[in-house]
């Protein structure tokens, strides 16, 4: 058997979903007995059959990728509940196995997959999608590139035709649910996991479940960013969201402001005051960067 064929056959067997009791599947997708398929390339020893030897790898693979998804999407787990999250994770990983050398990217296709497979979130599809988008934005904001920050000297020429870029690590989200608050509660609950008693943990879990059930639709805009290497979610106004997106697209500041306030009902005084506040905050947080490098980043994405 050539190297490529051996690796294809073994990988197919390793990546085939486990049974509900976390054992290797008894049959291949083509319906052949797995023990016969595996015994064609793996030898038994005096203690283990060929399929038992392969099962060590198969279980290890599934436990590793499931744990990784569990670590990256605790908010989604809270939204769906443990069992539904486990079902979703196994189905997603079967459809979208890792295509990257790093597990960091394991959830990169989850949003698109969940849109195509709404049955895994049921009546909580919109909430689940919002949480997936927020949690993936967290991952991206954590370690994406930071460009040189525009300093006061760069902003001397600030005028309507001035172009500024937005730091590539910032993720802008328009969401239907206030999942940022829910995610904070999930984090608090998991932080207490190592220290609290079982009774306290059960109560916390019940509180979290209740919070998910009672969560009301509320349009929110978020900038997921990082400051001093820590990821934060910042609620922003709809106009600020529009303006920042326009800057990211490369619009000059004058046009970006028009875009941001296009459907806004604020007065011109209010607009001026908002802009002053936002630009001051962006400067403090280092959100603005030169536009050229950002454009290059977008091309190579």
């Amino acid at each position: 058997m050539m190297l490529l064929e051996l690796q294809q056959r073994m990988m197919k067997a390793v990546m085939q979903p486990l049974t509900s009791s976390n054992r290797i599947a008894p049959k291949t997708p083509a319906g052949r007995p797995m023990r016969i398929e595996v015994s064609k390339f793996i030898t038994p020893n005096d203690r283990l059959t060929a399929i038992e030897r392969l099962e060590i790898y198969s279980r290890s693979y599934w436990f590793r990728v499931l744990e990784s998804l569990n670590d990256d999407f605790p908010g989604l787990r809270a939204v769906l509940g443990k069992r539904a999250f486990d079902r979703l994770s196994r189905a997603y990983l079967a459809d979208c196995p890792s295509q990257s050398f790093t597990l960091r990217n394991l959830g990169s296709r989850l949003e698109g997959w969940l849109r195509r497979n709404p049955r895994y979130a049921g009546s909580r599809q919109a909430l689940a999608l919002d949480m997936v988008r927020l949690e993936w934005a967290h991952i991206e904001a954590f370690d994406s590139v930071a460009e040189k920050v525009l300093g006061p000297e760069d902003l001397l020429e600030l005028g309507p035709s001035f172009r500024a870029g937005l730091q590539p690590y910032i993720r802008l989200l328009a969401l239907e649910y206030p999942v940022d608050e829910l995610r904070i509660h999930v984090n608090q609950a998991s932080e207490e996991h190592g220290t609290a008693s079982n009774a306290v943990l059960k109560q916390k879990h019940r509180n979290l479940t209740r919070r998910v059930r009672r969560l009301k639709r509320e349009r929110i805009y978020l900038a997921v960013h990082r400051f001093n290497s820590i990821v934060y979610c910042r609620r922003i106004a709809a106009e600020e969201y529009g303006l920042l997106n326009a800057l990211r697209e490369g619009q000059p500041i004058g046009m970006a402001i028009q875009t941001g306030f296009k459907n806004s009902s604020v007065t011109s005084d209010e607009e001026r005051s908002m802009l002053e506040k936002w630009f001051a905050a962006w400067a403090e947080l280092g959100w603005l960067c030169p536009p050229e490098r950002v454009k290059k980043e977008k091309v190579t994405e």
Partner: protein
Amino acid sequence: MPANRFNGFTEYGTGIGLRIPHYAHIFEKKPVVDWFEIISENYMVDGGRPLATLDLILERYRVVQHGVSMYFGSAEPLNREHLRRLKALVKRTKTPWLTDHLCWGSVDGAYSHDLLPMPYTFEAAKHTARKVRQARDYLEVPIAVENVSSYAEFHCSEMTEWEFLNEVVERADCGILLDVNNIYVSSKNHNFDPYEYLNSVPGERVAQIHIAGHSKFTKYILDTHDHPVIDPVWKLYEHAIRRIGPTATLLEWDDRIPSFDEMHAEARKAEKYNHAPVAAAS
């Protein structure tokens, strides 16, 4: 060999793996550590905390890069994006040598994130050696390949694991990261004599040694890196040092990670053996 072309002619002593739970201790107490081994993939990112933390470590400590997903043995070609990111990291850390595993783990673009065992065939050895050479030429740093723990063997194998290791490193002209715990684990899982394996390793190619703990199950042993090193593995290590000479040694501990001091103390047990005089290869 204390210093050779496969470890950049360095004489590093006892290192430990750089792990997140120890960051606070390291930055606060600034302990004396010969060197840290980092998992390359954890720092092959564009920015943020991983790189900021690494830069702080590099200000004070020597770092050697250890990879887990180059997959020299995968039938598919090397991943260019992986190599590009790895080279950027090599420039950042100035690692004197770089290690990854003698295994495969991806096929047709799908990644297992595991260290899957090689079939010990001449075809696989030739292919693997070619990829090691390509990586070394691109990265411009000495490469050493690590023997992995394994739980399965293949019908198509044409040689023993140690013969395969020798075949690859000779063809690639690369170094060896000798994992004595992995030799022990595989010897139990596949019923071979670990000393026969050790005695066949070309000592002049050993750039570094790994030691670790493992977990014993009824029918097999699993390389879990979550326990102290057991005595039979220390004995193998002692034998390796006697054959090869004092060698840069790294304790791997990846799960149920103890305090920094406990982990460092476990690693430094190696120093009892690592000053032994070189004896003639037996």
